[in-house]
């Protein structure tokens, strides 16, 4: 079985978010994701990447893994920043909640677009969000 290698990308600008979308798309295509599955993981990634720029102190990193589980392959992305963190995670996940001028759809929407969603955040320390989407069906 091939060893999974973690890749990473720094996020500092909205051009980096575009680069990240293309990178995630390429990996999703590479492991045979359907077009809909590709689009879902890329869209979730775009939301979380932009959140780092807008709310997470303006810079951070994305890590990409291709884990396997019960002979299924998937894409796992981890978004990390050392920004202000999220005081009330429940509230932040609610559709429509925003502290910026957004629609407040990014976090909740990203959670709906993937199979697993984990979030760890501490005020003043930063935020780490890990999402996984398995190759369907």
């Amino acid at each position, binding site marked *: 079985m091939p060893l999974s290698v973690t890749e990473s990308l720094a996020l500092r*600008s*909205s*051009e980096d*978010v*575009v680069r990240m*979308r*293309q990178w995630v*798309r390429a990996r999703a295509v590479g492991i045979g994701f359907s*077009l*809909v599955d*590709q*689009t*879902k993981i*890329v*869209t979730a990634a*775009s*939301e979380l990447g*932009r959140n780092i720029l807008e709310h997470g102190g303006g810079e951070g990193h994305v890590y990409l893994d291709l884990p396997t589980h019960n002979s299924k392959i998937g894409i796992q992305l981890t978004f990390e920043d050392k920004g202000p963190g999220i005081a009330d995670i429940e509230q932040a996940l609610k*559709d429509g909640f925003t502290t910026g001028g*957004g*629609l407040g*759809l*990014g976090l*909740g*929407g*990203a959670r*709906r*677009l993937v199979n697993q969603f984990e979030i760890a955040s501490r005020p003043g320390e930063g935020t780490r969000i890990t999402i996984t989407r398995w190759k369907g069906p």
Partner: protein
Amino acid sequence: MERIPILKMGGFLLITIQVDMHDRLAMTLQNDVTDMIVKTRARGVMIDISMLDMVDSFIGRMLGSIASMSRILDAETVVVGMQPAVAITLVELGLSLTGVRTALNVDKGMELLRSSIERKEANGAFVRD
């Protein structure tokens, strides 16, 4: 500066988004469309997104603001050619694109623009009587 071209066709503006837009590019497009509506007195705006393989909340919000700003300037906006995978993803994301008219392709979009402008003109004539 990098820009998305806006074509003028008859009384309409036609925008074909062919690149994966970063956020500033999307903001520039929004401003450019508004300027062009004013400059050309266009009555309709058609945005072809058939080449976009992803629409996230930011791009969705931009489409919504173009639609509402053009409405204020008395122009109709229609978004055409959304890929099925993009539409499915948008629904799950929770973005409803309220206020944004959509059509399957450029031809249908053109029909929609023409008929809604004719309707507006008919109503306008009635009000003026």
